[in-house]
């Protein structure tokens, strides 16, 4: 009789060998919860049944990836963070002829649209490019559309104001039938693409990389690899922004970065 952890290992090995998805360095506690949750949703009574389904039904892989990854996000999430982006980061990027930003693990795109609004308000959107990547193609499809539920707008509008926004937030979208569509001009400078932080390489040099609440799902080894990838992808004096409870303190790249203030934004100083 093998134990639950060994069963999960077997399942992860299958995923890698059959489909090239490598979840083996994800945080075990969190990954196990996601797998247990999926088993409950799809009525598998044990991990072996789930593993069998994954091996025999390639179509099920899409659902697995969608449900295992966490796609909880919101616009202007942690408003003080966005205030700091406005006041400390974007202002300093303004002098550049061209601004390149990477949202790594962008999920359904709420934070990318938030960034586009910040850039628009600073009159910098026209000279910016926002690369937004995720390993999950379904969330990228949603992000491209820029359509979000109307019910969230009250919260997002409050976040926007708390982040220092002074416009009427509702001017950025049009509402129909319980959904809102964000202004197409915001999306003009966005490029959505699949990218897996576990296995894919650096693809450009950026002035700002945002990767918020993604590293928490990785173990320390994988966090280190991904932080090195970010280091390699940042130009001199580029900025790296992480989630509110994520940190560089365990990483070898820490010595080359300086935290800008009490928000989780670091600048590459050497």
């Amino acid at each position: 009789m093998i134990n639950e952890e060994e069963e999960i290992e077997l399942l992860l090995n299958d995923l890698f060998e059959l489909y090239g998805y490598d979840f083996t360095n994800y945080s075990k506690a969190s990954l196990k919860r996601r797998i247990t949750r999926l088993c409950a949703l799809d009525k598998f009574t044990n991990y072996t049944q789930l593993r069998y389904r994954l091996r025999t039904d390639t179509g099920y892989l899409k659902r697995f990836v969608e449900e295992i990854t966490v796609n909880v996000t919101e616009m202007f999430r942690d408003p003080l963070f966005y205030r700091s982006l406005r006041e400390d980061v974007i202002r300093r990027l303004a002098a550049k002829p061209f601004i390149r930003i990477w949202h790594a693990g962008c999920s359904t795109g709420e934070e990318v649209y938030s960034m586009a609004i910040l850039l628009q308000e600073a009159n910098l959107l026209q000279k910016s490019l926002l690369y937004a990547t995720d390993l999950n193609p379904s969330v990228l499809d949603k992000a491209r559309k820029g359509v979000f539920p109307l019910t969230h707008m009250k919260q997002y509008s409050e976040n926007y104001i708390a982040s220092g926004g002074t416009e009427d937030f509702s001017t950025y979208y049009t509402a129909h039938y319980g959904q809102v569509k964000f202004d197409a001009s915001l999306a003009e400078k966005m490029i959505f693409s699949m990218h897996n932080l576990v296995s894919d390489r650096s693809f450009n040099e950026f002035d700002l990389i945002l990767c918020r609440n993604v590293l928490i799902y990785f173990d320390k080894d994988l966090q280190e690899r991904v932080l090195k990838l970010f280091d390699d992808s940042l130009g001199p004096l580029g900025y790296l922004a992480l989630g509110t409870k994520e940190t560089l303190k365990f990483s070898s790249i820490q010595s080359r970065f300086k935290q800008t203030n009490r928000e989780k934004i670091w600048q590459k100083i050497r």
Partner: protein
Amino acid sequence: MKVPCELIVIGGSSGSIEVLLKLLPSLKAPLSLAIILVLHRKNSVESTMAELFSGRTGIPVKEVEDKDAVEPGTIYIAPADYHLLIERERAFSLDSSEKINFSRPSLDVTFESAAEVYGPSLVGVILSGANADGTNGLRAVKRAGGMIIAQKPETAQVAYMPEQAISHNTMDFIFDVSELATFINSTLNR
């Protein structure tokens, strides 16, 4: 307990901060074990809970950051808006997935995760609150061989949460705040 206690997870919702403001000052330092506080609260702009509690005890109080090690002698606070999980190698993992029982952090999530790692060396405590979160988690703690304790409902500002836990689980103890402090000081902290 059959084995020394290594971790106490204390969960609560409305009315539990007042309990902790009484409990924490009466705990003796140094602590031979770690304490984790999982409290429902508004995702307020500033997280001041660590500051609030650290002024009341000589034991170090720390709001958790991702992958921090779980060390004895420390009181950890689950940050607002994340579930708090524990890895086999006794480090924290944060998780911003869907709310459980309308809550993030959810008591159930941390109790269940701690039970898997700590088994019989875990004590789960549930305090005042208006939600049934924690009841299932305490069942997992008990099943893994740990000990479970509820605040006496008649001493709780909101009795629902400990009442739910008590009616669905066989509690080891039902304590008021000063009994809980005495128990931690004289029996759990060695």
